[in-house]
């Protein structure tokens, strides 16, 4: 199809560039251009402090977006991630405070228990979502809308909206605000998550099955894929990743918060979509999602540095999301024609 346009051997440099562009898409190009422009015109952008900030805040979004991507690949949707983050935050903090009362001094035990409780809360939400979508065949939009409401309600009910203090110092200073080899710990966590998801997508049966399910559910079922199991797995992974992000965020903030990250759901979907993940399912790569998450946060950071009013910033972000996807769509259409 596309070789009608670019079929013959690349005769000129421009044609070769165009083919390279078609292969990687526009996102890396825009990202590099953005970074270069910012480095040239906004001096503080490359200051160590600022780079840390961007890296750290991107890490949380990268982790959540990777999970969101998995659900989008199977043709689903997860509106509840933004509620799982505060839920995991509150549950882990409360558990740590409780464990600290029961066994004071055993920091390792306290932290482990808190982390496990936080992850379990994510698992619970993921199971509600996954089981409802896979077995009750309810629309993912509504299920996750419902579980979002439930998770938010539980988080608020547990704390009355008051921050939970009293987590072990080692957890907050050592993990949440700590630096390993000069980099915030959240960056390593995000890198680990991306590496694992990348490996899963490229080298495991689960990765291939997820694409197959999203591409054509019927065909996947007929070919003997246990589609229900993998659907549940996708939702559970997504929620657990959201919980992981919530744990890291809690450690950085230093308290369990029932009212963090209202925007994270929409941002994670925006990042995935900018990265070319199809909302119809079957398409999406974690490395691109990572780039898109960086892109979104660098953009926000740049507007902060340029002292653009936060209210105007939201307008810009809205326009950019739409135009980014529009450009991508037009580029795809150009290669698809004939």
């Amino acid at each position, binding site marked *: 199809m596309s070789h009608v346009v670019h079929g013959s051997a690349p005769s000129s440099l421009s044609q070769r560039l165009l083919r390279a562009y078609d292969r990687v898409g526009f996102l890396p190009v825009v990202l590099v251009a953005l970074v270069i422009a910012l480095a040239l015109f906004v001096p503080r952008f490359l200051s160590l402090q600022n780079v840390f900030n961007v890296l750290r805040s991107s890490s949380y979004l990268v982790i959540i977006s990777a999970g969101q991507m998995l659900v989008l690949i199977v043709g689903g949707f997860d509106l509840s991630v933004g509620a799982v983050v505060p839920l995991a935050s509150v549950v882990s903090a409360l558990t740590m405070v409780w464990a600290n009362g029961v066994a004071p001094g055993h920091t390792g035990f306290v932290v482990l228990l808190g982390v496990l409780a936080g992850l379990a809360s994510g698992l619970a939400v993921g199971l509600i979502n996954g089981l409802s979508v896979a077995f009750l065949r309810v629309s993912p939009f509504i299920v996750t809308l*419902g579980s979002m409401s439930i998770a938010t309600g539980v988080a608020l009910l547990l704390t009355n909206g008051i921050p939970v203090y009293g987590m072990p110092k080692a957890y907050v200073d050592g993990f949440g605000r700590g630096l390993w080899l000069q980099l915030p710990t959240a960056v390593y966590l995000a890198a680990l998550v991306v590496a694992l998801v990348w490996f899963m997508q490229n080298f495991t049966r689960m990765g291939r099955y997820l694409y197959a399910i999203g591409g054509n559910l019927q065909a996947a079922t007929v070919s003997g894929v246990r589609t229900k199991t993998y659907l549940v797995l996708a939702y559970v992974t997504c929620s657990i990743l959201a919980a992981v992000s919530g744990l890291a965020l809690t450690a950085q903030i230093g308290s369990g918060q029932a009212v963090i990250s209202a925007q994270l759901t929409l941002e994670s979907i925006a990042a995935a979509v900018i990265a070319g993940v199809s909302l119809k399912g079957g398409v999406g790569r974690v490395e691109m999602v990572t780039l898109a998450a960086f892109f979104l946060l660098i953009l926000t950071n740049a507007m902060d540095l340029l002292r653009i009013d936060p209210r105007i910033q*939201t307008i810009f972000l809205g326009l950019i999301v739409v135009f980014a996807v529009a450009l991508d769509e037009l580029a795809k259409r150009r290669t698809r024609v004939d």
Partner: protein
Amino acid sequence: MTDAASLAPSDVAPRRSLLGWMLVFSLPLLMIVMELSVYAFAPRVLSLRNVVNVLNQSSYLFVFACAQMMVILTRGFDLSLGAAVSSVSVASALAMTGLAKLGAPDAVVVAAGLGAGLGVGALVGLFNGAFVAGLEINPFVVTLGSLNICLGVSTTISGGSPVFNVPDVFSRLFYNGVLIPEVSIPITIAIIIGVALHFLLNHTTFGRSLYIIGNNPRAALVAGLPSRRYLLTAYVACSLLAAFGALMLTARTGSGEPNLGGSLMMESIAAAVIGGVSLQGGVGGVGAVVFGALFVTMLSNSMDLLEVGGYVQQILLGCVTILAIFLDRLRRTRA
């Protein structure tokens, strides 16, 4: 499309078991059971005052859910609805208070408020529709974008605080005036909109085409329907209806509120879908929205009367939403 259920001719009445009939009427049944069980604990729920109150409140949600239905029918949805409501509210209030300060006559002030509000609504609808219909971009992304844009616009032009002193005449017109004795204005408007929309959807080419586009976009295209134009019109109609609802809400509060639309996006989608408007497109109607809006309003009203705390309400609302959709699913496959 491959569902056995959708292949069965709907004109032939199938033989239904008792369970089947109960499923068909699952939502009204659920509503009756809910009201009766609440009555046992809080008899006020069935008092005339409370019933009128519920009807009044649900008429707003009805308008927003109708707006949402216009695009859900075409397999889309509108995430920007709540934010657009805020923008419309602020814009119309600013226009009215500005003109009122200059001493313009009431008619001009109200006309300006209507014009500004519906104008903003039309702009949002054109933006959404142009990208969805023209460039075939996923409605989720487009309306996510316009959600952010509207959010920024409403907080910027209002400075983040409410715009007070909306003229009384506007409130009388859309909220507490008397048009038909004993029937409140919001209910009157909701009925007019419902009847008009029912006619539009069932008896005009545009309306029927929306169902075809939602059922099978390819077939609509092959059949030679001007799909793009209709799709654009659906998004504009959605935003205009939402803008009208926003004007009604502005008349009620008497001020332009930058946070007016907070939870409306989710509530409007939930009401439409609970009523039976399918997110897969092509299924639903005004009747479904009536039940959906009533159900959601009744639920929160019942919980208020039972003095259920706000956080628990949120949890129950989530559970009930999932349950209602599940029942809807059963109704469609079994009955």
